[in-house]
């Protein structure tokens, strides 16, 4: 029970973090048709910028400065990169962001080295918020959840209750009409791209110190975020939300289980030893298989329901 509650809370905070990333990705995708490969790189930059800022100014200024800096980079990327390659088609756009991810990783190597940096949780949040039976639950995790939920509430309100949000929604489906009504659609695109980058940056700021800030973090989270977006349905925010929580739970829970098919078979009375056929497959524990599970889920989803959980379009 104790284990279950703690792991549920952990998976919730991780899932919300995933959603901060996948919401930006899926918004950018549904608006511009661009799958942003560099999205997770913005997450990484957010963490590194926050680390650098926090060494001079502390955590709280970093919480504001780092996402803004990432948003600025995102705006530059859209204005001078993506808009230029847009006329060459979607493949070129995709490849551009792919190349950008490559370069950002190398820049991080260049500036901060290959080893993880010491980006720590601020002392003021380094206490236990409450205890579940005997486990002290860290306050920082609670802070993460509050931040993500607050951020997502803001996102929802901006998208549905403000003028710019309505223009964004309209530009998703009818860009020509919106343009004809006198709105500057390219600048809306730039805003959305910068906003998505800022969300990713913020996720980096609050996730970088909870997990680890290292040059590989973009690659490891990036593909998971892709899985989330495919699983939830391309371009669907609600789908991305559910998928984030599911994938977050799968990843968090699976590392804790030390059972394998061999355990099950032995329990059923089947004798297994190293000579048995497929022995390696049987003895793989769920914890060992944890890195593969999200991808297997994705492939299963594609076989059963190719457009994803809540997706409306297919390919």
């Amino acid at each position, binding site marked *: 029970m104790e284990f279950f509650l703690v792991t549920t809370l952990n998976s919730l905070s991780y899932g919300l973090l995933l959603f901060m990333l996948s919401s930006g990705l899926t918004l950018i*995708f549904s608006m511009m*048709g661009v*799958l942003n490969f560099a999205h997770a790189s913005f997450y990484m930059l957010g963490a590194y910028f926050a680390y650098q800022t926090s060494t001079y100014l502390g955590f709280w200024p970093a919480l504001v400065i780092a996402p803004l800096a990432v948003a600025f980079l995102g705006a530059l990327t859209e204005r001078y*990169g993506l808009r*230029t*390659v847009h006329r*060459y088609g*979607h*493949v*070129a756009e*995709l*490849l*551009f962001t*792919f*190349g*950008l991810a*490559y*370069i950002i990783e*190398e*820049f991080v*190597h*260049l*500036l*901060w*080295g*290959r080893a993880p940096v010491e980006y720590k949780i601020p002392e003021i949040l380094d206490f236990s918020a409450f205890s579940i039976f005997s486990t002290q639950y860290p306050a920082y995790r609670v802070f993460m959840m509050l931040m993500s939920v607050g951020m997502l509430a803001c996102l929802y309100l901006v998208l549905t209750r403000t003028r710019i949000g309505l223009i964004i929604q309209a530009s998703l489906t009818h860009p020509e009409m919106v343009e004809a009504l006198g709105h500057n659609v390219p600048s809306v695109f730039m805003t959305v791209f910068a906003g998505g980058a800022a969300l990713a940056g913020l996720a980096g700021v609050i996730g970088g110190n909870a997990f680890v800030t290292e040059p590989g973090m973009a*690659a490891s989270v990036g*593909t998971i975020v*892709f*899985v989330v*977006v*495919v699983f939830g349905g*391309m371009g669907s925010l609600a789908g991305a939300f559910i998928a984030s929580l599911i994938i977050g739970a799968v990843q968090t829970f699976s590392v804790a289980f030390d059972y394998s098919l061999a355990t099950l078979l032995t329990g059923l009375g089947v004798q297994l030893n190293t000579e048995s056929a497929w022995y*390696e*497959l049987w003895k*793989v524990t769920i914890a*060992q*298989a944890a*890195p*593969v599970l999200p*991808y*297997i889920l*994705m*492939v299963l989803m*594609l*076989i059963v329901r*190719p457009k994803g959980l809540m997706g409306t379009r*297919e*390919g």
Partner: protein
Amino acid sequence: MTPILHWKRLALWSGAAALMIVLPLVFSQSFAISMMSQMGIAIMFALSYNMLLGQTGMLSFGHAVYFGLGAFFSAHALNMIGAGTLGLPVTLLPLIGGAAGLAFGVIFGYVTTKHSGTPFAMISLGIAEMVAACSLMFPSFFGGEGGISTNRVVGEAVMGIDYSSAREVYYLIAGWCFVCMIAMFALTQTPLGRMANAVRDNAERARFVGYNPTRVRYMMLMLSSFFAGIAGGLAVVNYELVTSESVGVVTSGNVLLMAFIGGVGHFFGPIIGAILVTFMQSALSNYTLAWLLYFGLFFLVMILFAPGGIASLVTLHKHAWHAGQMKRLVAPYIAAGASGFVLLLGLIGVVEMTYQVETKKEQAGTLMNLFGFAFDASTAQPWIVAIATMAAGSLLLWGASRLVRAGWHDVTVAINAQRGA
């Protein structure tokens, strides 16, 4: 359309064959031979990749899966040949790789090719990640961190060839490479190859003509994974080692870079890309730790300014050359080249100094040597020089790019005038 056995085409292919035979006799140093072997493998891999991206319009981020799995199966087959449980000449080993690649193409292709465009790209990446993660889960097949090592000098020597020397391996690779090149080229001339182009350009119309785009994509993916598997099998013969890196995302990205830099719109584009990228990787990595950064920047510049790759630049200039208009471009190109060189010098200065100060300081200090100048990277002066060089280079390049544009404008006008006359 040129007939398939036109004399020009025959001359081109025989020329390529002759070149592949003569090259190791001219460049006989061992590093040159090993680099040419790598190039041969890269050419096959990049061409097989271009069957997807260039010919069918499928952007895959997981092509290394077929290459790597082909390599692992070949490595195990080679070990079995060594143990005497499998009677197969080493010369035919790549067929095992090809068969393995094909088998996995049949399995994964069934799931992936139901989609096209961006979803296909994402799913191919997901599959690649899945296989890469699996490769660390099953150490008895994938060899864990160390990989599977093997020995190629096994089995009966056929006509005295036992692959104990690097040159014999080169000729094995070159032979397979040539055969595969012809096969892949011939495929572009078949109805399937033509339908693949139709599916790439407009899948809906292809469906209207009576073809199923999903099936065309599936068949192209299977064939392409077959050739990728052959390349994987040859990689095993060449390196006598295969690690889980070869199914990894980095390898997939690499082949994408090769095909794209070379030019996906032309059959010969990926060949140029494979040769150039392999050369850059082995040459640059000797000189600087930041070579991946330079390489990535080169890739971005190509996407922004030459999205058709080097092959498209070649065909672009062929028109100007035939019209006798190259002379208008010589001066602007010299200007652009010179200013680009200045910009590059400044950029290299900044990057290398950053590296020295940020990451190499502990071991090597801040004293460094670049382009024959010795200086201390912790002082301001070299930074000012490098940044000023960069700024000057950017300004000059901006001016030169206007010259180039004006030159091309004149060329187009002149060509149109010639056509009109």
